[in-house]
């Protein structure tokens, strides 16, 4: 990877869903990286402006759902004069395979980046089979 590359601006991707939200405000899809090592699957998501207390990670029926809410109270008393990006909540969900050890999932939020580590279930980890 060359660090000299210039960063380009991308429009935030707004969430398109069939269900409607009960709370006002826009929802965006956070940019995510997913990578896999021998022992775990890691999901990294960018959710700038989301505090730990406003983050909700839930697992239900093999669907991992992340919901990060923005505290708009921070913008009170400020008059916007020029905007280049929109501010909204973040949500994204992934369907997990049953090869994940669902009790061992851990989450870490640093500098607006959420890292979810999903350890693989024992039976899904690579094994060496000895030939008898």
């Amino acid at each position, binding site marked *: 990877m060359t660090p000299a590359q210039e960063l380009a601006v991308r429009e935030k991707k707004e969430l398109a869903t069939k269900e409607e939200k009960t709370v006002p405000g826009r929802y965006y899809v956070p940019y995510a990286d997913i990578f896999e090592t021998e022992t775990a699957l890691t999901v990294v998501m*960018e959710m700038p402006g989301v505090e730990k207390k406003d983050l909700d990670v839930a697992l239900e029926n093999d669907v991992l759902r992340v919901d990060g809410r923005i505290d708009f109270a921070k913008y009170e008393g400020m008059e916007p004069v020029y905007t280049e990006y929109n501010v909204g909540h973040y949500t994204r969900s992934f369907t997990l395979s049953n090869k994940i050890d669902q009790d061992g999932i851990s989450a870490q939020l640093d500098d607006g980046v959420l890292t979810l580590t999903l350890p693989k279930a024992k039976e899904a980890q690579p094994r060496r089979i000895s030939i008898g």
Partner: protein
Amino acid sequence: MTMALFPDPFDTLLTLQQALDSFRSSGWLGSGPSGSGGYPPVNVFRKGDDFIIITEVPGMKKSDLEVQVKGNTVRLAGTKSVNYPEKAALHRRERLAGRFDRAVTVPVQINPDGVKAEYRDGILALFLPRAEHDKPKSIQVA
């Protein structure tokens, strides 16, 4: 709750702004050295006499951010890196890495000694106080 009354102030403004974009060459905000459209996208707010620039740069370290102020221009520079562990198979890669360097101009002179920069939860906020000599004087009517 105020949010119910004003469902989305950003949306309203963004729509208005797109309509006015062509008109913007009149340069109320002035076109800075890099003008608009660079990374990172910024939102500019006014609070009384002072200006606030807010930008989203998630995953950066404070030490990788560089902020400079001169006159009425703020320069934002830095390098954003995204790291993966060795021997990992990448399934999805949407986060971008790279460097950026852009200048943003505000319509007032900034007092460089009073500038505060805060980085929290991936958001960089710059508080730019208007320079004392740039503030309008109130004249007492005799």
